[in-house]
């Protein structure tokens, strides 16, 4: 205690606050440089808040101890949760990750198509005497042209020198070569030689050009694309896509808010609704059994090993900890190999032929067995109510174990997606990331929110049943 006498304590506190404030001011200056005004405001408020908490005497006392951890909790836990909640109300998914203007630009680029029987040209970027940028072109027949923003103009073949298939010189023009090309991109990549109608010659790199024409045109007034060949209009459907009357959709779409659509999809999709109860019950069974068995085993081991004077006691403990030091995903992969029913070591050792991973019920046993292994043996557990509940919640959402060991399988005959060992979170993953059109973050987020409410409710109820909260009185 003498180490923290009044003066030293005060000095430390002042040093700490000084560092915080100095960092705050410095960060504010950097943020101002970047014109991040909202961030500056948040930073200023946070710094002022911190100063207030640590300088005011009495009533902030608990906060002085709680604030440091809370800052990190907010930044890296609460913000991601808020982000997920936000995503749940969007259509963020494959085909919907750009902004609308980016999507429009993307559709325009994608709509450029090689004209049927269109020519390909060998080209060379060049400048005329006035320094104007243009292209020297040569088609497959050997005819040569000058291409400018105004169009294509034939020039005598003899004006153009070709060697090894490439245009190296053109009389009256300076052909650009070598390192000059590197700084030419801005001029070249937007340069097109119009051919009448929608067609235009567009350079592809520095040596070749093709004739391209758009198949769609954006109409800003109608806020939609018109298909040129048949006049079909693709209109903004307010869900992030341009869609024609017959349901045909242009790609890419864009990310936008879609209200509660993801939630109503969950309610209406038979893919999700039908197996939900079955998956939910199994999730409960899985999480409860893993927690119960591992705590029971942990307790048994603790009691067994806690005999005073037991020889090898330390050795046992030290050895039992080793699996804890091996990354869980590796252990899971090893287990998967060990449990193979024809070739796995477990069956060979016991001369059994149990279909550990192939039969729905045995697969459930395996998943529990391996999860218990992962939870119990690392260290010897003693039952603590909050820990049990946390462990329950963790296993409730234990995506890694299920995914790496059985992938949710084996399949159940009557459900398209849900497997025998699928828990809610692995099922969510399958629905949102391995079905439909690839990744659907919006749907996954909506499901995550629902799962959270389920597990939080169960946990809160079990809390009230334990003495954990009474100790908090």
């Amino acid at each position, binding site marked *: 205690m003498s180490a923290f006498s009044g003066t030293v304590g005060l000095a430390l506190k002042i040093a700490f606050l000084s560092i915080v404030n*100095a960092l705050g001011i410095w960060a504010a200056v950097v943020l101002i440089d970047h014109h991040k005004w909202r961030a500056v405001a948040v930073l200023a408020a946070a710094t002022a808040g911190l100063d207030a908490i640590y300088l005011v005497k009495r009533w902030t006392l608990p906060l002085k101890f709680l604030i440091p951890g809370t800052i990190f909790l907010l930044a890296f836990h609460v913000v991601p949760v808020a982000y997920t909640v936000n995503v749940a109300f969007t259509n963020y998914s494959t085909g919907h990750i750009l902004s609308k203007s980016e999507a429009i630009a993307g559709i325009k680029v994608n709509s450029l198509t090689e004209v049927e029987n269109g020519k*390909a040209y060998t080209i060379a970027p060049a400048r005329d005497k006035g320094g104007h940028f243009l292209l020297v072109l040569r088609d497959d027949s050997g005819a040569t042209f000058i291409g400018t923003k105004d169009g294509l103009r034939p020039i005598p073949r003899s004006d153009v020198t070709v060697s090894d298939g490439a245009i190296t010189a053109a009389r009256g023009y300076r052909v650009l070569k070598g390192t000059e090309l*590197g*700084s030419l991109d801005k001029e070249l*990549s937007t340069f097109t030689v119009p051919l009448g109608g929608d067609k235009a010659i567009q350079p592809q790199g520095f040596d070749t050009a093709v004739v391209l024409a758009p198949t769609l045109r954006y109409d800003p007034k109608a806020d939609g694309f018109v298909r040129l060949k048949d006049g079909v209009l693709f209109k903004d459907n307010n869900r992030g896509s341009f869609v024609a009357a017959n349901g045909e959709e242009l790609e890419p779409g864009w990310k936008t808010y879609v209200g509660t659509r993801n939630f109503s999809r969950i309610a209406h999709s038979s893919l999700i609704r039908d197996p939900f109860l079955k998956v939910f019950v199994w999730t409960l069974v899985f999480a409860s059994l893993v927690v119960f068995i591992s705590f029971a085993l942990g307790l048994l081991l603790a009691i067994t090993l806690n005999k005073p004077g037991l020889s090898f006691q330390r050795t046992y403990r030290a050895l039992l900890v080793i699996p804890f030091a091996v990354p869980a995903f590796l252990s899971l992969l090893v287990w998967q190999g060990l449990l193979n029913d024809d070739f796995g070591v477990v069956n060979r050792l016991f001369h059994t032929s149990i279909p550990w991973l192939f039969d729905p019920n045995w697969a459930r046993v395996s998943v529990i067995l391996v999860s218990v292994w992962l939870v119990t043996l690392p260290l010897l557990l003693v039952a603590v109510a909050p820990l049990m509940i946390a462990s329950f919640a963790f296993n409730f959402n234990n995506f890694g174990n299920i995914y790496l060991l*059985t992938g949710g399988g084996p399949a159940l005959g009557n459900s398209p997606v849900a497997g025998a060992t699928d828990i809610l979170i692995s099922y969510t993953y399958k629905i949102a990331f391995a079905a439909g059109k690839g990744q659907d973050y919006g749907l996954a987020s909506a499901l995550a929110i629902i799962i959270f409410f389920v597990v939080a409710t169960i946990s809160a109820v079990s809390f009230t049943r334990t003495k954990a909260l009474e100790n908090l009185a």
Partner: protein
Amino acid sequence: MKVGRRLAILLAVVLAASLTLIGGRATPAAHASAKAAKLTIWVDNVQKPAVDKIASAWGTRRGVDVNVTFHAFGSIRDDLKTVKTENAPDVIVAAHDWTGDLAANGLVAPLFPTKAIKKQFPAYALNAFSYGGKLYGAPYALENVGLVVNTRLVKVPTTFAQFEKEALAFKHKSADNIALAVPQGSGGDAYHMYPFFSGLGGFVFGSGKNGALNPNKIGVANKTFLKNAPLIDKWNREGLINSKVDYGTGKNAWLKQKAAFWITGPWETDALKASGIPFRIIQLPKIKFRSVPFLGVQGMMVTKFAAAHGVASLAKDLVANEMMKPSFQLDLEQANLRYPANIVAGKRVSDPVLKQFGKAGIGGVPMPNIPQMGSVWAELGGAWVKATKGPGATPARVAFATAARNIAAKIAGG
């Protein structure tokens, strides 16, 4: 007052400290008016040396700074979706089955190589990188599985009946012999099983107009295939195929000569050479149809960011021109032990193992590159697992018809 004194000290210290910090702060990087253009390429470990070599030579010629950055192969596709324009790559290496996803997301730009260049590539390699009728990638390597035959133990079969006879005869020699080491395991492996699937008339997606795949035409349980499916039940009964063989088991069995046949790909080249076992690699003999494997094609793509960075022409020049040339393709072949996509380069391949894998892939089908393929893998693999798990297996017709129904439900409802 005490508090007043504390505040005074604090203020003084804060002022001093922040002045020091601000003084030492690096001035914000002046937005470089980038004289020399800079082109960023994301590549994985394996290809990096070859890409480094070709890109830096090209960059010197064009007057461009080329920045070849290592990026783990598995994360390139997803990182491209979140990366900021400032840090985004202009060119990436890609697997062909990302094409639909990336194009539907508007993240990659279409390419228009000349006919002369296109002629140097098999049509399926270019199709593999096409989506909605447009080409989005320059293929550089092909990979596929083949039937690896231990020639010390069995004769190289020329017909499927011969293969079946040899495999079963070998299996019956010893209790722990495996007829065919083709990996499945509890999760299934539709990729390695594809030669059997195609040989019985199965396909994943039919194609619509302009050759684009149609996710609503599912061929997993098409009539022809279902008619031939009882053969699967026969293979299951006689033990030709057993879904309990997983990758490690199959590999070990072949290497320990407990299996004479192994279905695997060029990623095992090192293991094959090191085994000391005399072997030949062939395409699985024709069942009812040619038993072609799935093809994986690797290639380079130009991202949408190249235009924003003002290097679109440069990126297209590098990808659709330079990198499609035989010389680059051969460099990559050396680096990653895959058969080059360029036909001219393919003829120059000298490695005997690669050559044989290349031949085993002839006529192969590129894995569908539309995003809906995500709904297929587990189901198709699962149907094989159920139909070939030995006693108690589901009849193949039922297993595959169920899979087809599930795939349709997933594609519609996801």
